[in-house]
């Protein structure tokens, strides 16, 4: 526990020395954050290896909670990605942000965000939880606003602030309902509570609060703009960890409930399928690399919800196997998504750093000049598509196993929907990442911006390398994480189902590793056989004999995605601006298409504009004249007086 507290403290103060140092402030901050990560991860691993849960409490009875901060297996599991990504991001920031104006404040707030995140995972009291939650939200808002000279950034920041506070409001209400029931939060709730009216209220409120944070469709409105506008190492932390705090909240809630009603699991499954399929579909339509990644975060939150839903269904129906596989898949995907999405955002940051643009159709051919960034992005894309032998495959494999098992367990085949959703998400994600990687790193440079570039400095490449290694480790040796995962899943199980099956008994993980290693070995052998003896640097692409292929003739990202986007146009509603071609000798013309966000651009924005117009009718009340306000005070007092007397 003391290691953990030290880690939180170190993270919190990591930006402070930089305020007073003339140089090397960034190095000190990254060093402190790295130290914090080492200490905190050591503490988390000790708990996950079966050590006793650390506890920090008050001498006085803390309102029925187990303490202020408890480092239990759930907290330890979420702490791992928080600290790893914070440290990687801090180091990446050295090269990415450098000593630009505002760098000192950025580092200060970045450290604060990491500390609040680390605090939040172990919070075991509503007040501590809310403190961490609000601290995290505000620190993240400040970080999103780092480049607030751009109108786009300001808009993204304000949308984020409104969304997160709407969520916090729901969270206050949820804790209010819980304590009104006399049920101490952060402790197991009595049987029957979940089915009662207040149980329903708590679930719906939590779903809203945590759904806003996690970016569950249709509450995801803040996510794409904020992730696109924030500095890349901040986007990595937000997408990798911050949105997972919504999942943490749901996991905590589910761990208190011994008997969730069936519709909880069904609702989670429905929301998961919606977020997953629509998230990846909207990602396909994006032209901005970071927006595309942000929509993929929504998709992956959907996959995690599918897992939570499966586990909850297992809990309700009394199938321990389903419960273990569903929760294990969801929790492992939380960790995996942090690793590969952090990696993808860092590599996208490296691209933006080198070229100054995030527009897919202005990039291309970066693989030649940025081989390391390109390899890192490929590894991230590989993992996020769930392809073997990287880590994304393992967590999706658990979910597939769970839903296949569910087919046999109950007569009613609800889980075939989960299967179909997972298969569709997988295939569309593959198309989307083929598009993104192809448009950015392969082929020829489409503009000058993509041509005059050089590889990012080592301080940016090392964090990416660390994340690649972590992805490969989990993918090649899933048996290593299985015991830890078992403990976390057991913490989620109700006391009634004590005998949760161990994952190592459910799934043949060593065979999976053996096959993965076999695949790698085979690929290595074949690669050696193919290795070109000499390369003639002057040869163009053959392209059926076309002599002068130019970069403009390449297939663009938009054309690559055109098939699926057209197929899904009933859901995506792409906006296409094209000029009609007239006459025998038409002049220059242009064609543009983009996919606006369904909720933000089509529903929330117009609705809020309309209500703002309506509410402006009331503006005369706020005239700005002091006597009028005094009159209001007087009238209020009189009304109160009358009300009290009568």
């Amino acid at each position: 526990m003391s290691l953990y507290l030290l880690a939180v403290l170190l993270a919190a103060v990591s930006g402070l020395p930089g305020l007073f140092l003339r140089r090397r402030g960034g190095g000190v901050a990254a060093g402190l954050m790295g130290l914090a990560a080492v200490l905190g991860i050591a503490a988390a691993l000790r708990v996950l290896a079966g050590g006793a849960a650390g506890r920090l409490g008050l001498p006085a009875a803390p309102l029925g909670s187990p303490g202020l901060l408890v480092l239990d297996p759930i907290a330890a599991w979420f702490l791992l990605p928080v600290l790893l990504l914070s440290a990687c991001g801090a180091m990446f920031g050295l090269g990415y942000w450098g000593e630009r104006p505002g760098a000192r404040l950025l580092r200060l707030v970045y450290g604060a965000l990491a500390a609040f995140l680390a605090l939040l995972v172990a919070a075991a009291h509503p007040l501590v939880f809310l403190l961490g939650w609000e601290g995290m939200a505000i620190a993240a808002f400040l970080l999103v606003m780092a480049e607030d000279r751009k109108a786009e950034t300001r808009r993204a920041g304000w949308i984020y602030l409104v969304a997160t506070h709407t969520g916090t409001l729901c969270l206050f209400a949820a804790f209010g309902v819980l304590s009104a029931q006399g049920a101490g939060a952060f402790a197991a709730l009595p049987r029957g509570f979940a089915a009662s009216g207040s149980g329903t209220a708590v679930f719906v409120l939590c779903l809203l609060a945590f759904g806003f944070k996690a970016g569950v469709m249709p509450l995801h409105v803040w996510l794409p703009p904020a992730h696109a506008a924030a500095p890349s190492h901040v986007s990595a932390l937000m997408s990798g960890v911050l949105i997972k705090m919504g999942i943490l909240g749901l996991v905590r809630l589910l761990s208190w409930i011994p008997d969730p009603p069936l519709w909880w699991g069904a609702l989670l499954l429905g929301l998961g399928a919606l977020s997953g399929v629509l998230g990846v579909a909207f990602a396909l339509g994006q032209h901005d690399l970071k927006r595309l990644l942000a929509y993929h975060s929504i998709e992956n939150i959907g996959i995690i919800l599918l897992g939570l839903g499966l586990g909850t269904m297992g809990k309700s129906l009394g199938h321990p196997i389903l419960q273990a596989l569903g929760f294990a898949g969801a929790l492992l995907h939380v960790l995996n998504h942090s690793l590969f999405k952090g990696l993808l955002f860092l590599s996208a940051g490296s691209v933006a750093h080198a070229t100054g643009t995030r527009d897919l159709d202005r990039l291309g051919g970066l693989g030649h000049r940025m081989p390391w960034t390109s390899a890192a992005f490929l590894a991230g894309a590989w993992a996020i598509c769930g392809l073997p032998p990287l880590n994304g495959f393992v967590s999706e494999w658990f979910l597939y196993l769970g839903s296949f098992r569910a087919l046999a367990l109950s007569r009613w085949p609800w889980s075939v929907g989960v299967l179909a959703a997972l298969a569709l998400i997988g295939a569309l994600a593959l198309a989307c990442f083929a598009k993104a990687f192809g448009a950015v790193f392969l082929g020829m440079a489409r503009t000058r911006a993509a041509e005059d570039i050089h590889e990012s400095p080592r301080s940016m490449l090392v964090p990416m390398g660390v994340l690649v290694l972590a992805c490969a480790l989990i993918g090649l040796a899933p048996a290593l994480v299985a015991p830890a995962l078992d403990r976390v899943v057991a913490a989620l199980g109700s006391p009634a189902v004590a005998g949760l099956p161990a994952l190592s008994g459910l799934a043949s993980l060593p065979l999976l590793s053996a096959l993965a290693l076999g695949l790698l070995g085979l690929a290595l052998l074949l690669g050696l056989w193919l290795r070109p003896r000499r390369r003639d640097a002057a040869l163009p692409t053959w392209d059926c004999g076309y002599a002068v292929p130019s970069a403009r003739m390449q297939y663009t990202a938009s054309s690559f995605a055109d098939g699926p986007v057209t197929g899904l146009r009933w859901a995506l509603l792409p906006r296409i601006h094209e000029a009609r071609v007239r006459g025998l000798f038409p002049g220059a013309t242009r064609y543009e298409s983009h996919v606006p966000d369904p909720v933000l651009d089509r529903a929330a924005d117009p609705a809020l504009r309309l209500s703002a117009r309506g509410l402006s009718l009331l503006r005369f009340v706020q005239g700005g004249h002091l006597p009028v306000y005094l009159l209001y005070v007087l009238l209020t007092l009189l009304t109160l007086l009358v009300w009290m007397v009568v």
Partner: protein
Amino acid sequence: MPGFLVFPSHVALHLLVALLLPPLIPGLIAKVKARMAGRTGPPVLQLYYDLARLARKEAVFSRTTTWVFLAGPVGAVAAGLVASLLVPFGHTPAPVAFEGDVILFAYLFGLARFLTILSALDTGSSFEGMGAAREAAFSALAEPALFLGFAALAKATASLSLTPMLLAQGAAGVRLTGPLILVLAGWAIVYLAENSRIPVDDPNTHLELTMIHEVMVLDHSGRPFALVLYGASLKLVVLGALLVDLVLPATSRPWLDWLLFLGCLGLLSGAVGLVESATARFRMTKVPQFLVAGVLASGFAFLLLLV
């Protein structure tokens, strides 16, 4: 359920078949097509000669390409060979079988597809980009068809491993006949699409604008192209085994099982040749409808199992 290794002679035979048999299948298909058209056609072993010739040739690389260009051929063959370990050839269990190997099987083909698409995009050619885009879009429909078929079989056999799933059909009785035929129909469509055969794609056309798979490998030559051709024929065998296993009756003797399996694989190649001779390629806009038919067939198979 731990994986099990059947006794080595069968494993050795399985590996030999997986390694050496594939190039024969395209030869058989070509022969059937030639005979149907009244031509003599190339020898059945033509692909073996081609592979030997390509292995000796020097490869040409465009200056646009990077190492990703080689990842496509390598990935297709490596993933195909690993997948071949998971699928039973006839009524002998696969060398490696464990619960959930179905998912690994499907995702290995996903991996091969991903890398092939990337190596096509690596050339910067618009033709290859077109093929890659089509491959990505159509596979998004083929994937659910495959998975729904797996779901139906998993429901029917209460198993999650390819070996029991595909081979338990005979014992399951008459009730399964209807769903089985539907799964077979759905997967036959997947088979034609995944192996880029007519009516989805035409491997022999000379018009690059209309191709899917062949256009993606336009720039590969020498050894990389040998791997591409070998990978494609491997896919014909491994996915073909999936189809053949569904209908193969069990015999009492292992050697008869093997013979029957090889015979059925030959028949399947003949059937593909007949389909290719008898139908024309669909217009590109019709292909998704054809694939949706596959999804529906597997979906109905699943529904039938519920009643």
